[in-house]
């Protein structure tokens, strides 16, 4: 959470020579982070980020306490001026004006005091100005007192119209599911159950405790007697309630972080003082205070060696004590062992030796700690790591003109197969499922580039999320790509070249597939296992994809060495006239397998029905002469005639 601290207000509790800039810098280096300093009218406003563990600094007083400990470390004088109260009320478990029953699991401390004959009017200017400075709108003296105390000490305070609490009775309990309550902003909530509520003597719910008061017990312009109300609630219940009801109030945000029970006493006394001063009200002499388990300081044990080892520096015992004492911890050394007592305002943050270490280290100054790389053994590499393989593919494809894209893993329902993982809280319908294929994403990517008239090739390596019962999904790494305005042979050639570079031995098998145009899809197989597909989509772009895990398995990381042939190859072109609708892939495959000395075949040109192939004849042990070649050629030609009805052309 972010808070605003007024420099003027801060100076009520902090005596220092620090300039606002120096104060901000020192706090940021050793304590809460000051994001910026803003100039107010005759004031400086610090915007401070409060982390969830340091709710004790979520108020002017808490920041003063922190600054008083930190500034001397930067050689700047600073002293905390403690918040003193004038009220002389006694505290008791029972009072005459209110009969209260609480559930001690929900409410750790419950304090209230009746203040009679209040006069509702606007607050004095200095109160109004300070509230406005920290972003609060002044309403009237009663409401302003609550807000003032909350910003000052970080403790929410509530006020009831005492005369609206029927039977002067309160029962603090967990709500039952379905109970209804209207808060003072006029919203009626149907409670989920387990919320902290207060019921009055007639069984009416009058407070959604820790979040917002009930409308039926709210202070209004005719209120005479006010019940000043300060509590510590169980943070888990508060959080659940405001999340369920989407009712995130400033009070709730403080309570959910676990407040200091000792703060309740200070809050009520400060409240009494302000009520007397600003409303002229008359407080009762006894404050009701139900506090079943008063705070007992937690003991944390550490050792000198622990500090030195974890920080990599030498520290003296007195230095450690000094830092901790500045922060409100009591310390006592016994040899090298340090016993620390945790102050109440740090009770929800400090449990372990590591927590004490953090306090010492930040006051010592993280910026003062040494810096050195670790020595020690280097861990073993990951077996079968996929990263180099993926990088190699990306290099090859982009080297041949491919453009890599990163598209979102979340897609609309229309893009996934049934059973796909559905998001419980998506940002919108367009991103409500985890994709099961990259195809819809790439088709969408292509459509977003329709203005492009030149050929292009987009590709991506990313996961598809295939659902599994009672398990995390199978995250399958997929390579997919799409070609636009591209000739089929050129697109296929890139895929063939990729497979060749990866030393993947595969077969293209023509087989129709969903979303691909009829007869325009090939399955890419290795040892009869499908590892990918390539084909022309209905909108005429060319799409391919591979299961990268499978592709990696069949690829050889290192190209196998074959002896360099001693005898040169005879190379010749052969032009074939083929009947229409002949599959050229089959013709090429036939030629290649026609004779063991035919080592390579390539399709060179196509002109109408004439297809020119280049043939490499080679023998491992001799140079083939024209006669040898002719024998092989004749075998090929007659085979082609028989199988495909092909005629040769000179």
């Amino acid at each position, binding site marked *: 959470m972010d808070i605003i601290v007024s420099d003027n207000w801060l100076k009520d509790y902090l005596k220092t020579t620090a300039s606002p800039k120096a104060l901000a810098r020192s706090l940021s280096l050793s304590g809460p982070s000051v994001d910026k300093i803003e100039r107010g009218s005759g004031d400086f406003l610090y915007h401070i980020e409060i*982390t969830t563990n340091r709710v004790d600094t979520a108020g002017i007083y808490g920041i003063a306490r922190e600054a008083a400990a930190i500034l001397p470390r930067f050689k700047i004088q600073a002293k905390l001026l403690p918040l003193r109260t004038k009220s002389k009320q006694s505290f008791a478990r029972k009072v005459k004006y209110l009969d209260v029953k609480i559930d001690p699991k929900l409410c750790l401390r419950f304090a209230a005091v009746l203040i009679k004959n209040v006069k509702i009017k606007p607050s004095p200017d200095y109160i109004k100005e300070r509230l406005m400075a920290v972003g609060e709108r002044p309403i009237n003296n009663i409401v302003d007192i609550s807000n003032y105390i909350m910003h000052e000490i970080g403790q929410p305070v509530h006020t009831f119209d005492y005369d609206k609490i029927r039977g002067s009775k309160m029962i603090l309990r967990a709500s039952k599911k379905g109970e209804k309550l209207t808060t003072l902003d006029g919203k009626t909530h149907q409670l989920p159950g387990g919320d902290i509520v207060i019921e009055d003597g007639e069984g009416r719910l009058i407070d959604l405790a820790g979040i917002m008061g009930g409308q039926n017990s709210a202070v209004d312009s005719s209120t005479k007697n006010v019940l000043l109300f300060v509590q510590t609630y169980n943070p888990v219940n508060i959080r659940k309630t405001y999340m369920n009801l989407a009712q995130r109030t400033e009070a709730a945000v403080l309570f959910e972080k676990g407040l200091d029970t000792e703060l309740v006493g200070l809050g009520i006394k400060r409240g009494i003082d302000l009520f007397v001063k600003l409303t002229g009200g008359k407080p009762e002499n006894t404050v009701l205070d139900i506090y079943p388990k008063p705070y007992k300081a937690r003991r944390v044990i550490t050792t000198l060696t622990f500090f030195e080892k974890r920080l990599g520096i030498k520290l003296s015992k007195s230095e450690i004590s000094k830092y901790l004492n500045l922060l409100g911890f009591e310390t006592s050394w016994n040899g090298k062992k340090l016993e620390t007592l945790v102050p109440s305002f740090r009770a929800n943050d400090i449990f372990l030796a590591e927590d004490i270490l953090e306090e010492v280290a930040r006051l010592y100054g993280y910026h003062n700690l040494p810096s050195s790389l670790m020595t020690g053994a*280097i861990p073993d590499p990951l077996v079968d790591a996929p990263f180099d393989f993926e990088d190699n593919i990306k290099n090859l494809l982009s080297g041949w003109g491919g453009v890599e894209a990163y598209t979102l893993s979340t897609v609309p329902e229309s893009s996934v197969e049934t059973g796909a993982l559905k*998001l419980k809280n998506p940002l919108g319908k367009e991103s409500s499922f985890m994709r099961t294929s990259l195809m819809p994403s790439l088709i969408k990517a292509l459509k977003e580039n329709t203005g492009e008239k030149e050929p292009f090739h987009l590709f991506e390596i990313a996961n598809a*999320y295939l659902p599994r019962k009672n398990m995390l*999904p199978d*995250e399958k790494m997929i390579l997919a790509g799409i070609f636009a305005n591209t000739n089929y042979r050129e697109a296929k050639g890139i895929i063939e070249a990729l497979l060749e570079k990866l030393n993947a031995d595969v077969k293209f098998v023509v087989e129709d597939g969903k979303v691909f145009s009829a007869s325009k899809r090939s399955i890419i197989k290795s040892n009869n296992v499908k590892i990918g597909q390539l084909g022309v989509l209905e909108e005429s772009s060319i799409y391919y994809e591979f299961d990268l895990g499978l592709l990696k398995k069949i690829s050889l990381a290192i190209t196998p060495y074959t002896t360099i042939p001693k005898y040169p190859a005879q190379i010749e072109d052969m032009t074939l006239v083929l009947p229409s609708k002949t599959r050229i892939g089959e013709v090429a495959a036939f030629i290649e397998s026609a004779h063991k000395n035919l080592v390579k075949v390539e399709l060179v040109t196509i002109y109408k029905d004439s297809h020119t192939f280049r043939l490499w004849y080679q023998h491992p042990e001799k140079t083939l002469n024209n006669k040898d070649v002719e024998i092989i050629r004749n075998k090929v030609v007659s085979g082609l005639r028989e199988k495909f009805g092909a005629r040769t052309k000179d």
Partner: protein
Amino acid sequence: MQKGIENINKFTSIMLDVKNEALAQIVDAGNINELEELKIAYLGRNGKLTTLIKKIKDLSISEKKQAGGLINEVKNTILDALATQKNTLKESARDWFDASIPGKKPTIGHLHLITQAIREISSTFEKIGFVRVRYPEVEWDWYAFESLNIPRDHPARDDWETFFIDTPPHSKYGLMVLTPHTSSGQVREMMRVKKPPIRMLNIAKNYRRQSDVSHVPMFHQFEGLVIDEGISVAHLKGTLDYFARNFFGKDRKTRLRPHHFQFTEPSFEVDISCGVCKGNGCKLCKEGWLELGGAGMVHPNVLKNGKIDPNKYTGFAFGWGVERTFMMKAGLEIGDIRLLYSPDLKFLRQF
């Protein structure tokens, strides 16, 4: 030399002889002066061709016409040969070659900015023994939060705007989530390695429920995790300084400030000295420093969850945004970060 021209055939044959003779001499000419002399010898007032032309008066009218065409052709051929030979002589004895012609480029491909960033980040850390890994993007709540010391109802969870998957919860591991950070890999890595040393670099896609000019619901983080005997804050600082020097530049430094994460104790916010003002303070930074991301010493509860003895081993971790870190390095100012995940070729082709 011929005395008279009886008919067109004779004339033609003589003309061709003259032409061939001229061409042969032109090709043999070794300098510009020789070419000038040849030009006069054939085309001058008393040149061989000029003299021949004068003789066509003996021919018949129809033959004269035919001869005229031939004369023009021969004259042009000789002129062309003279010009060509002149150019050849200028270029001395070399073959003509125009090196100034624009090349014919292959189609240029592009690796995505994020791929480039990931490569640089991994190579920097791999040099000091980090092992790159990858863990589930769809993960159990236990790995993403609970094992990291963030219980179900802890307000710290608000820092991660988490997406949940609509499936029944696992009896032990809770709900299924989209990993909001790479820290989900910490306990998985401890369980994989079992016995330190651990120097993990986990780079992965993360998901958070926010979308505006500086947030994309899907983004990338890199997470470092080091666990061994005797690891201290000094080692964290050393590693971060190493990264700053090698990734950002040798004069860059890092600085730690207090922060809070449930899974580290102490926790830090890491700043890097501003590369623009060299740490003196400017418009781009906060008094000479820029925020990089979070880090801290691994919380003993997290080590315990990863079945590592916190009394024997200590460690540190850091996890930062890939996009942000890379843009800080490259000085790229991409106004709307969501552009990174758009397939717009006008964007992708820039890198």
